[in-house]
């Protein structure tokens, strides 16, 4: 048995060796080298166009299948929601309810006043603006991923075959490729930044640090097959400024940092993340906080403003929402970063959900699970808009400034501008909002009486 097996063993080893070499050469030539120089062969855009054609074909098949069975194809919530909501105020509504009733004046209680609150309550049970922002956006048509199949029932044999083929390609070819790239990118980042850390502070160090960061982030971008379109690059953030963007996932950082250099802000984690953070800060100053320091708002503000005053340091990257939102809306911006008083460079990031949903639902998936899902989607396609810089105006307080910036980002990205706090993902809403409603109603009941007695 022994001598009989060995020629085959040798052959097998040789074949394996050759295929690995070929694999790595292709990887190097087509992906890593362009990443270093920031060039592109255009392979990813071609891939994207092909995928779109396939999705369109799949939708047509499904619609045909649905028509044969005489059903309407499931269409999720459109931008208008599933019910018609009249944006009338409390006063208008109460006046209308009483239009035909006994008392036209609003200063007396009518039993029909409850109708307004009742209807509003039921409307919010059927469809509310907030809870749907914390789960993945539903698609209009199926993109051949099981995870985004919400009730698309009319799947013919041909579609199933296509789906099966998709699974093989994504898990058998794309996922290993992307994992290899990701590991390469991260290890190069750690190794090179540690090496640069040994250089003395100066122009050479900054230059090299910039190049290394850009190169590694570009490799990571290719590890996710991220196809990014940058708009208005003339507005890119400059030193001494703060860059704010809407937050959808940790990938936002990779997307922004592969086009420019930023100082990151965040809490120091343990494990692999901690290792990456510690080595990054050796090459250029990032702002990392210990867990205990995060609660101290004054300390945080001081460190941020110190960094910003030093014009030689890179612009800070902050996500004022404080948590990941599903990229259909922008939620309340925390005012901390807007109190510092430097120029704010707003950036809007909008993902195209057809190729893969980038939202990180942290209550459903851990980080590793999330990254694996990212790497087994078709691609991550997004657009980044650099908006013109904004500063706080005379007589504007931090909250108003934050809302102004938020409105600009929402407008550019085509997102819904909400006043609700992203913290509602986990926490309860504050009682003060209910008290505001109660005050409003009380004023209507009692307020007009006071006006009458005065005149």
């Amino acid at each position, binding site marked *: 048995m022994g001598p009989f097996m060995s020629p085959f063993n040798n052959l097998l080893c040789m074949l394996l060796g050759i295929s690995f070499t070929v694999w790595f050469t292709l990887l190097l030539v087509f992906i890593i080298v362009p990443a270093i120089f920031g060039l592109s062969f255009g392979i990813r855009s071609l891939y994207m166009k092909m995928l779109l054609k396939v999705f369109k074909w799949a939708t047509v098949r499904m619609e045909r299948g649905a028509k044969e069975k005489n059903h309407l194809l499931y269409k999720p919530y459109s931008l208008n929601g*599933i*019910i018609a909501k009249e944006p009338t105020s409390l006063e208008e509504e109460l006046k209308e309810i009483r239009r035909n009733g006994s008392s036209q004046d609003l200063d007396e209680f009518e039993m029909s006043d409850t109708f307004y609150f009742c209807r509003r309550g039921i409307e919010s049970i059927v469809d509310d603006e907030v809870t749907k922002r914390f789960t993945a956006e539903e698609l209009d048509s199926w993109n051949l991923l099981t995870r985004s199949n919400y009730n698309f029932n009319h799947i013919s044999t041909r579609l199933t075959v296509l789906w099966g083929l998709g699974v093989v390609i994504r898990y058998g070819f794309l996922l290993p490729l992307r994992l290899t790239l990701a590991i390469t990118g991260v290890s190069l980042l750690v190794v090179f930044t540690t090496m640069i850390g040994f250089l003395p502070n100066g122009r050479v160090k900054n230059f090299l640090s910039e190049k290394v960061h850009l190169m590694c982030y570009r490799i990571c971008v290719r590890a996710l097959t991220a196809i990014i379109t940058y708009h208005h690059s003339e507005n890119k953030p400059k030193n001494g400024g703060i860059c704010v963007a809407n937050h959808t996932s940790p990938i936002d950082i990779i997307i922004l940092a592969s086009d420019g250099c930023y100082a990151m802000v965040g809490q120091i984690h343990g494990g692999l993340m901690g290792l990456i953070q510690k080595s990054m800060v050796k090459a250029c100053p990032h702002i990392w906080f210990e867990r205990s320091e995060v609660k101290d708002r004054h300390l945080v503000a001081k460190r941020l403003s110190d960094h910003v005053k030093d014009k030689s340091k890179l612009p800070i990257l902050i996500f004022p929402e404080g948590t990941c939102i599903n990229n259909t809306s922008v939620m309340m911006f925390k005012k901390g970063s807007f109190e510092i008083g430097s120029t704010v460079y707003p950036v809007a990031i909008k993902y195209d959900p057809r190729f893969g949903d980038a939202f990180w639902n942290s209550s459903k998936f851990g980080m590793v699970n999330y990254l694996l899902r990212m790497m087994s989607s078709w691609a991550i396609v997004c657009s980044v808009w650099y908006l013109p810089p904004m500063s706080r105006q005379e007589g504007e307080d931090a909250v108003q400034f934050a809302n102004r910036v938020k409105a600009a980002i929402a407008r550019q990205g085509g997102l819904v501008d909400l006043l609700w706090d992203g913290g509602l993902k986990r926490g309860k809403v504050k009682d003060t909002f209910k008290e505001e409603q109660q005050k409003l109603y*009380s004023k209507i009941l009692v307020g007009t009486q006071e006006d009458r007695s005065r005149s």
Partner: protein
Amino acid sequence: KKLNISHSQITRLYSRFHSLDKGENGALSREDFQRIPELAINPLGDRIINAFFPEGEDQVNFRGFMRTLAHFRPVEDNEKNKDLTSGEPLNSRTNKLHFAFQLYDLDRDDKISRDELLQVLRMMVGVNISDEQLGSIADRTIQEADTNGDMCISFSEFTKVLEKVDVEQKMSIRFLH
């Protein structure tokens, strides 16, 4: 069938039910409703949530969920399906008024007492109106509505007071598609 809701509306409502059901046990509890911020800040939020739960129960299944929501279907839809044998639909004017009546009638004894009225008023105005003022508002309301002198408002007295109000429109929500 009595609900007269279309297939696509049912699908959508089921999807919504499922997304509210965080425990994934096929039923909603009061906490599941309170997780909706817009409902939590509604002054009558708790009373509305209560309307979904039958006497003594703390779980509502999808059928119960739809049944309660069916009260709010617009009345025009009935014109299309005039089914004489199916009895009074859930979204008739009377049933809508009954839903509103039950918001006041906490102990479900078919009468709104002065206390029950005061409680609902207190929920709507919060701390902004004094007890005396609220008391006089309640007294005036009962005086105007009470016809049989029992110092309570029965369902028929309630209906009479609201006979000129466009209940059909104000207690309806319109589905798009």
